C-alpha cells in the first residue's frame, strides 16, 4: 500500500459513528433531513442546535432505537438498525431525562443495569467501587435514588453509562438543570473520559460546554448540519472576531443612526445591539461620546456563531 492508501484506511477504520444522508420524518414534519456525520475514535463531538433541531432524534437513530426513512448508518462498524443491538454492547448512554430506578440504591442501580449487558454479577460488583469513585458517590453507595441531589443523580447516570466499559458514550444534554458546581464536576469527568480514549457524542445548548469539551462540533437546525468544525474554526469562519454589546437609554435611536457605520455587522435583540467588527476601536471611541449608552466589549464566542446561524427568535 502507498502512504495515501494507508492514511485513507486508517481514517476509515477510525470512524466509529457514520451517518450518510440520514432522513426521518414524523407525519408531515421532517425532523432529520439528509444528515451526514462522521465521528472518529477518541473524539469528543458536539451536536448543537435549538430545541427541535433534531438532536435527540439523531441520537435515537444512531442507537438504532428508531428506523430511518432513508440513509445509511453505522455504529462501531455495525450497520444500524440491523445490528444496533450488537453495537450497543460497547455503547453507554446518558439520557436527557433521568431514568434511574427509584426503588433501588445507588449500587443496585449499577448492578441491575450491568445485567442488561449480559455481565455477570461478580464482574459488575468488581467494577462498582471504581465507578462510584469516578462519580464521587462512594459515600452514597447504599443511598436510595430519591434522596440524591440533581447533580448526584446525573453523576450516577454517567456511572451507569460506564458500567459496560463502553467505547462510545452518548450524552443528551448531560448538564441541563445542574448548578455551576455540579456542571464543572461533570465537565471534568467528561474530559477524563476523553483522555482515556473514549469517544463522546454530546448534544447541548450550552455554548461554553461545547467550547470547553468538544474537539469538533456541528451546529444543527431543521434536521440539517449547518456547519461543522473545531470551536475556534467555527468562530473564525463564521463571525467577526470582536463584539461590542451596546445597551442603555436611547440605544434604538443610536442603532438606527450609527450602528451600521461602526460595525461590519450588527443585530438588535431585545434592548441590546450586538456590533461585530474586526477592529472595534473606532466604535469604542465613538461610544465615549454617548454617556447614556453602556457597552460590553468582548471577543466573539460560540454563542455568537450559534445565534448568527440559527437566528435569535424563540423556538417553541
Amino acid at each position, binding site marked *: 500500500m502507498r502512504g495515501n492508501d494507508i492514511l485513507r484506511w486508517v481514517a476509515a477504520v477510525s470512524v466509529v459513528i457514520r451517518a450518510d444522508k440520514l432522513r426521518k420524518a414524523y407525519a408531515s414534519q421532517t425532523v432529520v433531513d439528509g444528515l451526514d456525520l462522521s465521528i472518529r475514535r477518541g473524539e469528543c463531538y458536539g451536536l448543537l442546535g435549538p430545541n427541535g433541531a433534531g438532536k435527540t432524534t439523531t441520537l435515537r437513530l444512531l442507537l438504532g*432505537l428508531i*428506523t430511518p426513512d432513508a440513509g445509511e448508518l453505522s455504529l462501531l462498524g455495525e450497520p444500524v438498525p440491523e445490528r444496533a443491538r450488537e453495537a450497543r454492547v460497547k455503547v453507554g448512554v446518558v439520557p436527557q431525562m433521568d431514568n434511574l430506578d427509584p426503588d433501588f440504591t445507588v449500587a443496585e442501580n449499577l448492578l441491575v443495569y450491568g445485567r*442488561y449487558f449480559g455481565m455477570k454479577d461478580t464482574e459488575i460488583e468488581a467494577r462498582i467501587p471504581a465507578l462510584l469513585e469516578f462519580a464521587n458517590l462512594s459515600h452514597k453507595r447504599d443511598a436510595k435514588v430519591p434522596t440524591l441531589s440533581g447533580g448526584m443523580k446525573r453523576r450516577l447516570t454517567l456511572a451507569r453509562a460506564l458500567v459496560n466499559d463502553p467505547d462510545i458514550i452518548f450524552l443528551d444534554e448531560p448538564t441541563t438543570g445542574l448548578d455551576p458546581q455540579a456542571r464543572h464536576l461533570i465537565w471534568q469527568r467528561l474530559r477524563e473520559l476523553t483522555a482515556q480514549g473514549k469517544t463522546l457524542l454530546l448534544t447541548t445548548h450550552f455554548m461554553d460546554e461545547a467550547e470547553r469539551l468538544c474537539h469538533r462540533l456541528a451546529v444543527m437546525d431543521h434536521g440539517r448540519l449547518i456547519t461543522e468544525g473545531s470551536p475556534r474554526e467555527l468562530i473564525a469562519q463564521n463571525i467577526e472576531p470582536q463584539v461590542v454589546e451596546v445597551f442603555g437609554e436611547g440605544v434604538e435611536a443610536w442603532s438606527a443612526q450609527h450602528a451600521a457605520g461602526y460595525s461590519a455587522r450588527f443585530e438588535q435583540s431585545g434592548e441590546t445591539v450586538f456590533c461585530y467588527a474586526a477592529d472595534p476601536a473606532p466604535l469604542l471611541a465613538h461610544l465615549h461620546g454617548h454617556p447614556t449608552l453602556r457597552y460590553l466589549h468582548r471577543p466573539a464566542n460560540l454563542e455568537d456563531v450559534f445565534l448568527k446561524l440559527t437566528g435569535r427568535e424563540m423556538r417553541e
Partner: protein
Amino acid sequence: MRSDIFAFPRLSRRFFPIWQRNFLVWRKIAAASVIGHIADPMIYLIGLGYGLGSLVPEMGGTSYMLFLAGGTVCYSTMNSASFEALYSGFARMHEQRTWEAILNTPVTLDDIVLSEVLWAATKSLMAGSAVLGVIWLFGLSHTWLSLWAIPLALLVGLCFAGMGLVMTALAPSYDFFLYYFTLVITPMMMLCGVFFPVAQLPPALQTLSALLPLSHAIDLARPLLSGTVPAQAGLHLAVLIAYALAGYYLSLVLFRRRLGR
C-alpha cells in the same frame, strides 16, 4: 416499516435480567404484597362465604365456601396480573422511564414485553398460591388435584397479562385503565361464575360468558379444588392459551408502534 411491527416475536433469554429487576423491586415491598395476596381472598371467603354460605348451604354440588374458593383463585389471579400489567407496567414504560433506560442497552423492546408478560404472570402465580394456601388453611380442599391450581394460576396470569398490556400499550395516562376495569374486569367478575353458577344467567349472557377467559379458568379451577378432573379441560386450556398468545402478540405490535418509531 409496517411489516416490521408485525414481525414474529423475537424471543431471547435477555428478558431475564428485566424479570430479575422487577423481582428485586418486589422483594423490597414483599411483606405488603404477600399480605395483600392473602388478605384480599380471605375477605371474600370470610365475608361472602360465611355471610351467604349460611343462606346457601350448597351450590354446584359443593359447599358455597368451596364454590366461592374456586372463583376466588381465578379472580385473584386475574386481578394481580391485570394490576401489574396496567399500573406497574405503565409506570415502568412511561412514568419512571425504566424501559427507555433498558432500551439503551443490548436489550430490545421484544425482550421487555416478554419480561412484562412473564413478570405479571409471576405475580399471578404468587397470588394464586396465596389463595390456595388460604383454602388449605380453611380446610376447604383436601385433594392433591388442587395443586393444579398453581400452574393454572400461571396460565391465567399469562392470559390477563397479555390482555392488560394491550391496554397499557394504548394508554395515554393512568385514567385510561378505568375503562378496562369498568368495562372488562368487573363485568367478567359477574358473568364468569365467580359468585354464582353461570347457568343462573339468561341464555344470551351465558353465550357471552362462554367467550370470556375467566369462565374457562373457573371451569378448570372449581373441579380441581373439589377433587375431580375438569370436563372439557382441553377446550378450556386452549381458550386460555389463545387469549394469552393473542394478547401478547397484539400488545407487542402496539408497543412497537408506540415506541419504535
